[in-house]
């Protein structure tokens, strides 16, 4: 636990009478790929929202590198180097793919508030955006309007935007959902490469993908953590098999 990068302590979030996330205490270690799995409605997305500052918890604490960031607004959390992608594609629909990434790349650089120089003259921003598109296999789609791209491409753009903002810790909400097998394989490859230099928290329903990349797996059910362990231990866990894996892994 000493090198936990991100830590939650008794984190809870209620929506009216519903406890979407309940007393979750987790430690995300630096440099690790940490998968979060669980049935629909288990509270996985809500947990990510609490980590990214998109939502405020009803109780509990979020700590990043030893700092209490529970009450921090989302934009300040982003500036710490915590970036996220969305399960429900959340892009700038009328902007080109490149512009989507350029806005993302610009966000955390000094000079984002610059009112004089042309935005498109920032070489550092442009190269970051270009690089992010390349990493996600969208280089030849740069000038296409986001809304005109295929669903799978939009999912990859979602990821490219995240990379363009160069976070240290990536919170990925179902990065593979809605992708074809080829796209999926390419993204899994990308995630493996990113894992060498980043810390990844990844919600994913595709258990093959999870077992292919994850070094830690947390299983959530009904807002609570059922188990959090190494992939081998999770595979062997009786309670997990009953609650979830039994149906997902043959």
């Amino acid at each position: 636990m000493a090198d936990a990068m991100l830590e939650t302590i008794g984190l809870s979030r209620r929506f009216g009478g519903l406890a979407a996330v309940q007393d979750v205490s987790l430690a995300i270690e630096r440099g690790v790929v940490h998968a979060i799995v669980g049935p629909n409605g288990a509270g996985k997305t809500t947990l990510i929202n609490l980590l990214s500052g998109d939502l405020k918890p009803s109780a509990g604490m979020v700590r990043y590198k030893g700092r209490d960031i529970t009450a921090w607004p989302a934009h300040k959390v982003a500036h710490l180097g915590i970036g996220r992608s969305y399960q429900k594609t959340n892009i700038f629909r009328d902007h080109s793919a490149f512009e989507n990434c350029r806005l993302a790349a610009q966000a955390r650089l000094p000079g984002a508030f610059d009112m004089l120089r042309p935005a498109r003259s920032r070489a550092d921003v442009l190269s970051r955006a270009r690089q992010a598109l390349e990493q996600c296999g969208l280089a030849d789609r740069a000038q296409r309007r986001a809304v005109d791209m295929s669903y799978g491409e939009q999912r990859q753009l979602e990821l490219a935007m995240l990379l363009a903002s160069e976070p240290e810790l990536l919170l990925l909400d179902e990065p593979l959902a809605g992708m074809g097998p080829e796209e999926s394989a390419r993204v899994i490859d990308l995630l493996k490469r990113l894992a060498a230099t980043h810390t990844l928290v990844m919600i994913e329903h595709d258990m093959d993908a999870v077992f292919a990349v994850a070094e830690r797996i947390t299983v959530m059910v009904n807002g609570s953590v059922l188990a959090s362990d190494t992939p081998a231990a999770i595979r062997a866990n009786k309670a997990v098999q009953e609650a979830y894996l039994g149906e997902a892994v043959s």
Partner: protein
Amino acid sequence: MPSYSRVTLVLLALGFAALALFPLVGETFYIRFFTKIMIYALFAMSLDLLVGYAGLVSLGHAAFFGVATYTVAGFIDKLGIADGFLILPAALAVAAICAAVIGWISIRTTGVYFIMITLALAQMLYYFFNDQLYWGGTDGMNISAKPLLALGGFTLVDLSNRVQFYYTALACLVTAFVMLSVLLRSPFGHALVGIRANEGRMRSLGYDVQRYKLVAFVVAGALAGLAGFLESSRATFATPAYLGWHESGHALMIVILGGMGTLYGPILGAFVLLLMEDYFATLTERWLLIEGLFVMAVALLMPEGLAGLPRRIAALRRRAPENGDG
């Protein structure tokens, strides 16, 4: 994010050139009238920054225009100071401060609530001037002189000379246009457009959305203050009506008619709407009805407003050679 097409740029250059040459040929009445139109174009352009780019539909923008007119009146007739180089920065500052306060409160809300709260806060300022006899109450104040723009006894610009005033208004309009174009081309401007498109994603990317909105609100308020300074210098009075929701709504109509999110649309809109008002007011008493119907028709039939016309022409031109080739 203005990246103007070539057709638009040519038309813009022609338009500004025509305005620059107009006093050489125009009748006195129209020189005066065009001066007024350019002031309202500037006012509407400042509103376009909020409505057309930042996605902040303010129905209280006239408050900043109005407080600037009272700043001019206050300096000249309450303090006895006519130095324009003092009054102008003061008018801009007062407008900007009011915008900062009203903006700070309103940006906490969105959508219809934002419209309502900007309206309510602006009406508070309206009633402040409307109810204070010190400021002339409902009648407002006559301003006994024009601001003096002189350096060391030498008059730089004589605002009581109608041609000089015309060029002053034109210079302010062009300067504001260039300034806003630069601003919207910058990272800040791109961020504003991003916020209008998808506020939540901007926030999670690391943009302090509220701060961007507030700065946009203050910039727009200060430019409205510049328009207010010009208007009170032109008309030599200040009245509560300048702050009222009628004035705010009128500016919004100009923006919608001309085409929001273009900057030059409001210039077109101001010319068309004010010339129309002038024409119909002499014909019929029901001109407000005609005006309303006209603006609605344009809004429904041409969602891009009058500013969409050059783009349509450009699109036609682009299609034409294709047809020719095969």
